[in-house]
């Protein structure tokens, strides 16, 4: 019996142990070059983390009793990188069954065992915007997650207090999936506009009917509510500003179309995703106050990105558009610092401007800038430590911290970081997810669904 005691204890308490482990940690980072993003760069500076929050930034801080110290002498300390567009940590990307699917939510499909989350941490990325795909003109709701890799509880991935968001998609993808693939609207950019307008108008009517009903109910107990419609209910949240639009887009004309739709419906906040031709309409984006989340240098993988430029982020930034650089890829999410550095080759952004593209700017686009995106007292202790400057090609992330807990440690982590090891497949099989960098993960799930259709072609 004694022989099994430890095992029994372990089994009995391990779920509790996991929960306890995942909350928050305390840590003192000593003597690093601290790149705060919002408050300048500080050399030989300490960062004290207590219970998952940044408690103090300054010189000669002493570690409180029981708080571990990390020596960052000669190293660079920056806020955890934020990806405003990814599809990691989720099991489903596209509900490609209707041009409007606002009722679905990728937050219902969180997969805490996705190895991509660990790999993102190894690239210094601590939060991401797990998005619905781009199959539909109005896609599903997205989920801002924290990379709390190690927990098996999907709920712990949700970032507390992050605003709700939803995916819209313009151009070739919804055209291809619905118009070409299923023979229904939209097959053109004209159709995309009308599908979106129809969805928003129905939501407006639904919200008005609901309000009318709520008024009527006060005096008439027999008043009838409108038929419940989750799709319109969610889109009513978009109209009220509770849910932020993140709109997959490429061409200048469709961006302008979407701005007009927003104006007509009084929608104030929108982030355009990919937005390869954003540079062409940068003045319009700036005037509206719309944001842009772009690739550093992807182009020519499909026709709507043929007239792109790697100077996109620079042109947008210089025109006053709030800009971020995203990955849309389980590969690129591991080196967003390098993607940001490319804006120095293509347009000569300063270090501060380039680093803002992957920290405070995406935080603003996701509405979480009061919690993450810079190193400031009171913010979440999401931190990454590099051996060289993060914008240098020789910068290698060494330690990644989420809520004060070290989740990636280059020196000490074992090679195999899978959480769920299939005993039948103890040796993991060969899989090249990114052999072709032209892979559009925005359409994941659609190819599988329409595989037979593609074969017929």
């Amino acid at each position, binding site marked *: 019996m004694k022989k099994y005691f430890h095992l029994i204890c372990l089994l009995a308490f391990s779920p509790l142990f996991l929960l306890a482990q995942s909350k928050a940690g305390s840590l003192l980072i000593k003597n690093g070059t601290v790149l705060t993003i919002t408050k300048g760069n500080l050399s030989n500076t300490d960062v004290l983390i207590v219970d998952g929050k940044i408690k103090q930034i300054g010189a000669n801080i002493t570690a409180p009793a029981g708080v571990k110290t990390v020596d960052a002498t000669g190293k660079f300390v920056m806020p955890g990188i934020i990806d405003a567009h990814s599809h990691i940590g989720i099991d489903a990307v596209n509900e490609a069954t209707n041009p409007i699917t606002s009722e679905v939510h990728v937050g219902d499909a969180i997969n805490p065992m996705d190895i991509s989350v660990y790999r993102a941490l190894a690239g210094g990325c601590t939060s991401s915007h797990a998005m619905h795909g781009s199959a539909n003109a109005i896609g599903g709701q997205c989920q801002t997650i924290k990379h709390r890799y190690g927990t098996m509880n999907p709920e712990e991935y949700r970032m507390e207090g992050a605003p709700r968001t939803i995916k819209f998609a313009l151009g070739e993808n919804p055209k291809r999936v619905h118009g070409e693939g299923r023979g229904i609207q939209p097959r053109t950019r004209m159709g995309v506009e009308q599908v979106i307008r129809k969805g928003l108008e129905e939501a407006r009517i639904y919200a008005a009917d609901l309000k009318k009903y709520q008024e009527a109910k006060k005096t008439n107990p027999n008043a009838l509510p409108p038929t419940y419609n989750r799709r319109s209910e969610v889109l009513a949240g978009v109209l009220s500003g509770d849910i932020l639009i993140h709109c997959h887009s490429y061409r200048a004309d469709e961006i302008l179309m979407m701005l007009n739709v927003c104006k007509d419906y009084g929608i104030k906040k929108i982030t355009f995703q990919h937005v390869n031709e954003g540079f062409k309409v940068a003045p319009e984006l700036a005037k509206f106050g719309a944001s842009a989340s772009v690739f550093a240098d992807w182009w020519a993988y499909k026709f709507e990105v043929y007239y792109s430029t790697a100077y996109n982020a620079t042109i947008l930034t210089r025109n006053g558009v709030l800009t971020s650089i995203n990955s849309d890829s389980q590969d690129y999410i591991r080196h967003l610092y390098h993607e940001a550095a490319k804006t120095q080759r293509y347009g000569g952004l300063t270090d501060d401007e380039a680093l803002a593209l992957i920290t405070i700017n995406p935080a603003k686009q996701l509405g979480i800038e009061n919690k993450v995106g810079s190193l400031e007292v009171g913010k979440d202790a999401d931190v990454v430590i590099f051996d060289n400057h993060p914008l240098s090609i020789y910068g290698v992330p060494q330690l990644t911290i989420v809520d004060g807990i070290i989740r990636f440690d280059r020196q000490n982590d074992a090679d195999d970081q899978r959480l769920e090891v299939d005993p039948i497949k103890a040796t993991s099989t*060969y899989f090249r997810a990114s052999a072709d960098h032209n892979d559009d993960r925005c359409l994941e799930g659609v190819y599988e669904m329409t595989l037979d259709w593609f074969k017929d072609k």
Partner: protein
Amino acid sequence: MMKNKLIAALAILLMVGALRAQVASSTKGVFALTNATIQTVTKGVVQGTIVLQDGKIAALGTNVTVPANAKVIDCKGLTLYPGFIDGGSKVGIGEISAVSVTNDYDEVGELAPQMQALTAVNPSSPAVAVTRVGGVTTALIVPGGSGRFPGTAALINLVGYTPDQMYTGFKGVVLDFPTAGGGSRFDQRSEEDRKKDEEKAQKRLNDIWAQAVLYSKIDSATAGKPDYNPEMAALLPVVRGQQTLLVEVDKAEDIESAIKWVQARKIKKVIFTGVAEGWRVADKLAKANIPVITGPVIDLPTRSADRYDRAYANPGLLKKAGVKVAIRSNSTENGRNLPFHAGFAAAYGLGKEEALRAITIVPAELLGVADHLGSLEVGKSATLFASTGDPMEPRSQIVHVFIDGWQVPLDSRHIQLYQEFLKRSPGVDK
């Protein structure tokens, strides 16, 4: 008179407007790049001057006399590097990957070694200029996709208006080695079916090779006049050890099979390409003395249980085991990232010096063009660029590019769009 002048002026303006839509032409002449830091790659770092004449490096050193007719470019504060060589790319033979009719690298047929990548090069593809302004002056363009022998790769310089002007001295037959690999979410076969398919493919490959050997014998017996067979004719120089076989292979098990396969057939000139899992079998590659062109380096690990940085570390681990390693982008439109792939390899174990060699002299040697490419030496091709700093660092700017003696304008579609739209006119109000 006045009216004529006005018309002439307008005509010139219109011409300028028309020209603006295209990348400007390159110019040739005698150039002296003075006060430069010269990274020769093979003979250390030299302070001084390089003279370019007749497409070649005419002089290089600290005490170099500048010819009277030379156009002098002061390179104070700049470092000169030999043009980078991308050991595997589809620049010029692919255009828009999602639009299949724009791509010319994947011909129908399992056996198509006679297909010439050089034939399908579009010298005016916008990606050509986009790539070369980043210092990547030379690329091995490699056909492939679905065939076992998808065609013949060719090394091109990214300057010129015809494929022949671009060609620079190497062709190699591509073999996409059989694999049970799956390796993609499009592959929905069962593991058993994959294994069966691989065995079938392996047997078919062996038959093809046996045929090629037989064809070589018939060719000898008929004094070079065998029956018309373009596929076998294309394999002939490889069978005879006169031409290089480029074996595309990634998975560890397949690399091992491929080593045995080429050894059993005593294939003389062979390079393995891709080699994503080379690190797993690096000792075997080293022992077999088979050189490698690997990449992309900035890539995911190939297995979920593998350490996160395996793709970055692969070139360093191969080199450490004693394998000769060149690096490729394996890209169509983003070959400009080649120095960044090398930079990641450098940071994750290969080291800066070897990383630089892996995109200059090593590919030049592997492809048999080190007589004119891969380093800065007197007599070699005037193919080089000037950088404000380490060209693997994104913050460095490439400021002069010469290919084959031609001064290439720092112009591309990406740069033109930048110039047009940085301060768009009209802006919001017209």
